[in-house]
């Protein structure tokens, strides 16, 4: 749901850019502290994978498509701050090189997908891992985190469009929520498979310090135990 230029007004562009700039500064500080030199290529390949996966639109409903966002994927494997940097980098490359997402809308797109989405994924995942003590809790937490990460971005996008006077909130919120509820299912399926595959190859284990299972937890945003 990359917002193109022309959909947002000046106040929304400036406000979202300011919030995103602060969030990225915070991401950089948190990520660089916890990230060893060996973790750097891991961030790079995660961003590369998410860029590639975002190109593969899958059909949802009649005449509509969606693609992976990847915020939940990166958050579950690397934590929300590294995920923020990864998604923001992907959005910048897409906007500069491929005209996907507006240049002026970059702050809004980063806020929606690289700030709000990873935070939503993080809190949903952590909450479910903490309280859900049944079989497949991992998979359910991953799926739910993915679905909510897309929905939160859709709500943020709707709010920005409404704030800009492009379309009234009560008109846009329901269609945006409905289509992204469907796209979120695709997000959940792809993320579940990708977390298992990438986690296995890179020996990353999601956890965020929650020790309710036999798994060894990694530090919050510790960048995983990268090889």
């Amino acid at each position, binding site marked *: 749901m990359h917002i193109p230029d*022309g959909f947002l007004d000046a106040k929304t562009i400036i406000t979202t850019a300011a919030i995103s700039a602060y969030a990225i500064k915070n991401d950089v500080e948190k990520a660089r502290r916890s990230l*060893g030199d060996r973790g750097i290529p*891991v961030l*790079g*390949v995660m961003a590369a994978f998410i*860029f590639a996966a975002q190109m593969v639109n899958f059909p949802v409903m009649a005449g*509509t498509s969606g693609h992976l966002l990847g915020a939940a994927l990166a958050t579950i494997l690397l934590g929300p701050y590294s995920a923020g940097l990864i998604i923001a980098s992907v959005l910048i490359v897409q906007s500069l090189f491929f005209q996907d997402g507006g240049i002026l809308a970059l702050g809004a797109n980063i806020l929606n997908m690289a700030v709000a989405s990873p935070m939503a994924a993080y809190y949903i995942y952590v909450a479910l891992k903490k309280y859900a003590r049944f079989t497949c809790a991992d998979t359910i937490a991953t799926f739910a985190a993915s679905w909510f990460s897309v929905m939160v971005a859709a709500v943020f996008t709707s709010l920005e469009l409404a704030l800009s006077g492009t379309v009234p909130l009560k008109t*846009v919120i329901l269609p945006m929520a409905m*289509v992204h509820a469907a*796209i979120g299912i695709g997000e959940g399926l792809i993320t579940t498979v990708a977390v298992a595959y990438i986690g296995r190859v890179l020996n990353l284990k999601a956890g965020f310090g929650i020790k309710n299972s036999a798994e060894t937890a990694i530090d919050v945003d510790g960048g995983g135990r990268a090889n």
Partner: protein
Amino acid sequence: MRKWGVILLTAVLVALILSPFASTHPDGLEKVAENLAFADKSETLMARFSPMPDYAVRGISDGKISTAMAGVIGTVITFFAVFGLMKALSPGRR
């Protein structure tokens, strides 16, 4: 091969093989914008400066090959952008 190289290779293969066959329907936001009649507000401010607008490499007439090439180029750019950024910001380098 380093383990992260396997993921980079996976990413390149996804871009090369899957991206040309992606659905060309409008995405969620585009569809909503069409339905609610604000899609025409979209502007392309940087059209002249965009090297690969809409994931197409200029000069390659075949749409699928063009998308695949743009995908591979973008995947590699993204890898080096994040790798370079994190190297530059890494506390170990002073």
